[in-house]
């Protein structure tokens, strides 16, 4: 690909170079080389007053880069790799009046749509009115900075629910750029706040909603998605009860097997945190989620041995309404005593393998 692009550049240079008899501009790898000049000291205004490379837009300043004078040539090395699908202009005006110009067209990106939405968590089709967040998982890295143009929550009349999400410019992506975290506006979920009183919760119990992800959202290459996605769900009552580990059903596999340990929760839990905040002490294995994040399956690398094991849950583990194990998302102080800050401790349960 790189080679093909270079050939295209070289061809473009050869065609459009309007060099005078002995001065010309050549492409050398990713550098621009002014050939045939008579070496002079760097002008007070900088080398760019003699030889400048710029993008082909009106009044474009010279591109950042470094100049290296060589015998018979002046080399410009761009600070950043040349971008795809761009036109670059290299212009030289020498002190003796000779001029040269070259125009480069870089090959456009391959914009075939290949990226898809793989999952939207929670996967349940009934979600509490105080649902706190969604995760949108893509098959490839996405472009940053356009999320809020491409995600909408529609009510059962097909109207956009206004201000449903916490639209922060920074966008909450993972490091790979493949998973976006979408927070519902916390001001409309928390009780007793002006936004909640003025507008109510974005999701209302008993009403139907459609989360729309547009096909026109660009991936990291600049291509649109293969298809748009809709997730339909129904609003359920708000859930303000911390998940209770003692209500989790633990099904232990048999010793000598690598069958999964299965933990069943009474309600869906946060998909991302189930991967990070629940573990079997000192045992390596892989986690899979099932039944709309009501089930956590842990398959060990080596067969289970008879004995007692510890299932450790970090107390920051949340259900899908943001309730931690040891604290509801918003605590009603009229009904519960004021707590210390959320614990960073764990809740440990034991199970036995026979």
């Amino acid at each position: 690909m790189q080679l093909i692009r270079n050939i295209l550049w070289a061809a473009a240079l050869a065609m459009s170079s309007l060099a005078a008899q002995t001065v010309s501009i050549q492409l050398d790898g990713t550098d621009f080389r002014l050939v045939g000049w008579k070496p002079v000291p760097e002008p007070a205004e900088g080398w760019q007053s003699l030889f400048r490379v710029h993008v082909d837009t009106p009044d474009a300043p010279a591109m950042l880069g470094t100049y290296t004078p060589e015998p018979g040539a002046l080399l410009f090395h761009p600070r950043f790799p040349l971008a795809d699908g761009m036109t670059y202009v290299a212009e030289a005006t020498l002190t003796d009046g000779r001029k040269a110009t070259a125009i480069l067209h870089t090959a456009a990106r391959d914009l075939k749509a290949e990226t898809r939405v793989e999952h939207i968590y929670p996967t349940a089709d009934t979600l509490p009115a105080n649902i706190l967040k969604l995760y949108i998982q893509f098959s490839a890295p996405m472009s940053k900075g356009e999320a809020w143009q491409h995600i909408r929550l529609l009510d059962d009349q097909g109207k956009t629910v206004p201000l449903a999400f916490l639209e922060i410019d920074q966008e909450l992506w993972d490091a790979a750029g493949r998973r976006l975290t979408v927070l519902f506006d916390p001001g409309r979920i928390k009780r007793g706040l002006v936004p909640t009183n003025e507008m109510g919760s974005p999701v209302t119990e008993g009403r139907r909603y459609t989360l729309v992800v547009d096909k026109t959202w660009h991936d990291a290459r600049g291509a649109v998605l293969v298809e748009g996605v809709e997730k339909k769900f129904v609003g359920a009552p708000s859930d303000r009860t911390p998940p209770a580990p003692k209500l989790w059903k633990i099904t232990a596999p048999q010793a000598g097997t690598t069958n999964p340990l299965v933990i069943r929760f009474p309600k869906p839990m946060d998909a991302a945190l189930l991967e990070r905040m629940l573990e079997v002490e000192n045992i390596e294995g892989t986690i899979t989620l099932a039944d709309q994040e009501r089930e956590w399956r842990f398959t060990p690398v080596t067969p289970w041995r008879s004995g007692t094991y510890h299932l450790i849950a970090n107390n920051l583990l949340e259900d899908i309404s943001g309730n931690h194990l040891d604290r509801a998302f918003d605590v009603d102080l009229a009904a519960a005593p004021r707590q210390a800050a959320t614990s960073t401790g764990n809740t440990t349960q034991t199970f036995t393998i026979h």
Partner: protein
Amino acid sequence: MRKTAFLAGMICAATMAFAASNTGMTKGKVQLKSAGPLAFGPEGILFIGDSLGSSVIAVDTGDTKAASAGKVEITGINQKVAALLGASADQITINDVKVNPLSKNVYLSVTRGKGEGAVPVILRADASGKITEFSLDNVASSASALPNPPVAKAGARSDPRLETITQVAYSGGKVIVAGLSNEEFSSNLRTIAFPFEKNVTASSIEIYHGSHGRFETQAPVRTFVPYTIDNEPSIVAAYTCTPLVTIPMSDLKPGKKVEGATIAELGAGNRPIDMIAYKKDNHEFILMANSSRGVMKLKSDHLEKYKNITAQTDITGVPYETIGSLTGVKHLTSLDDSNALILTESDLRSVPLP
């Protein structure tokens, strides 16, 4: 003459080395993974929030020559920055803008590219409007890591957790960092003593919102401004859930649970981006840029006199007005005692403080 210059150079180098050692900095290349919010500390120290690198970097800009601010007007700054970086404007994101309080040069935190190949860049605009790169290739710097909550040792397929830094500020020897996790709903505000000690980790404080004295929830800080209230160093902060609160700096102690005192409830649709504090005509004001409600001006004389809003019938908080002439503001920062600097979709310009 040459000797004098050499001597001056030596003195300058010695001074810089002294400054660098005093601030725990070492000279070399700074490898940012991302360039997010910026803040200036003392003596031209620039703090850069690097969300992907989970750290805050302090850089000695050496840009300490005092100057007074002139009128700033760079129209089409997005196009100009794009051209400088050899890319199209749709591939450029200006993440933050701050003014060096000494030199009045403008620093821009920029991302070139939006996908996998995205590169962080720090740019500097001088009084003439000329934009250049502020190179991080050979600068005195130090870093402070932002801690990540425990990662499950067994089973986790990857670690997609990331804390997105939404604001950085320096006040009274401390760097204050607000951020939002892309997984657990946490309300950690981090403070780091500066100069950074070696391998220092930012300590976190959990911020809570006591809504009308009845409901208590974790309240991530979206943006904030250091502010002295009744001679007490404090911050005025905007939560993601909209209330505006005050928190004394002395409360920001590691591991502590802190509850801000609500001084205004700004209502639904309020999405604060940046805040600055200033004095005019013997009164104190806070100017707040807001992504959907324009720029708000709050009269902030004697904030200590505003009691914590504790009842819904008690909405008598800090009075504010919307400045109709300022629209489309994406970033707002102080330029000098009389002027602010605003960044819109396409322009960077100074405006008189209203």
